[in-house]
């Protein structure tokens, strides 16, 4: 549960911090913290031209990257499609009803916090029977399956995973009635946590 407010408050804190740095230290000094923190800038915040100044555009492209997994680069690879087919056959996977909260650029690929929650019911005749976690670029794509029952009252999982490289992460809820819902996010770990 605490993952959500913590991340949000950190972001808004940084949002307030950045202009303060710029005013206090001047444009040149401001480049360094801005380059470090640029990736965490909430989408829609003014870009301040930092990516352009650095000449590589990486800060801007990270912040502007869509979180829907619709990038060409984010399409499931053949290996990911195979995992999905083995799990769900040819059932349709729809976006929605799943919330996936992760830091966008975790400093350590060995320890990446993941928070998954679904607003789907947990009633005896209609519940989330499994939450699957897939990391497209990991050696083991299907990182974990969490099999749940209505006794939990809410489909919510908080854990920590390893990530090898920049990758799309998919949180998938499978209901007892056979529906499949997911949320996807692209995550940029700073180090390789898988070897």
């Amino acid at each position: 549960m605490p993952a959500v407010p913590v991340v949000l408050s950190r972001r808004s804190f940084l949002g307030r911090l950045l202009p303060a740095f710029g005013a206090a230290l001047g444009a040149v000094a401001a480049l360094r913290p801005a380059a470090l923190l640029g990736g965490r800038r909430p989408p829609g915040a003014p870009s301040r031209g930092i990516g352009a100044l650095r000449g590589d555009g990486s800060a801007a492209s990270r912040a502007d990257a869509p979180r829907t997994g619709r990038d060409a680069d984010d399409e499931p690879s053949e290996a990911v499609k195979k995992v999905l087919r083995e799990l769900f056959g040819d059932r349709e996977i729809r976006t929605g009803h799943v919330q996936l909260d992760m830091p966008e650029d975790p400093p350590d690929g060995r320890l990446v916090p993941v928070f998954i929650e679904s607003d789907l019911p947990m009633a005896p005749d209609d519940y989330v029977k499994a939450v699957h976690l897939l990391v497209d670029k990991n050696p083991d794509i299907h990182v974990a399956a969490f099999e749940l029952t209505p006794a939990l009252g809410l489909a919510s999982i908080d854990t920590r995973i390893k990530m090898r490289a920049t990758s799309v992460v998919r949180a998938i809820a499978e209901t007892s009635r056979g529906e499949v819902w997911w949320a996807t996010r692209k995550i940029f770990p700073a180090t390789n946590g898988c070897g």
Partner: protein
Amino acid sequence: MSARRAARAEPGQGRILLPESIQRGSLVHVRTLLSHPMHTGLFNTPDGEPIAAHFVQDVVVRYGEETIARFRWTSGISRDPFVSFPIRADREAPLRVTWTDNLGGVFEASAEVRFS
């Protein structure tokens, strides 16, 4: 390898953390933790020797006699695996978690759900 790192590399005690006060029928957040290396099998020691895969692959959560959740993991879960999930506290009963790793290691922890 320092003594502290060596100690951390050995699988050890599992823990379950429950809130201090639990109301009947409320949604309670359970936090579970096990010290375990969760080796992927993809790393070497500093001497170049491969480190064999050693990771928890099955976690069973029982509330009283009922199995309420079961987690199937790979070595993609971080070292000292932590997982938190809710339960609907509708009865006083022990909550038990059993972790099983790929080398046959079995680790258990339990906590009592008691209403206050």
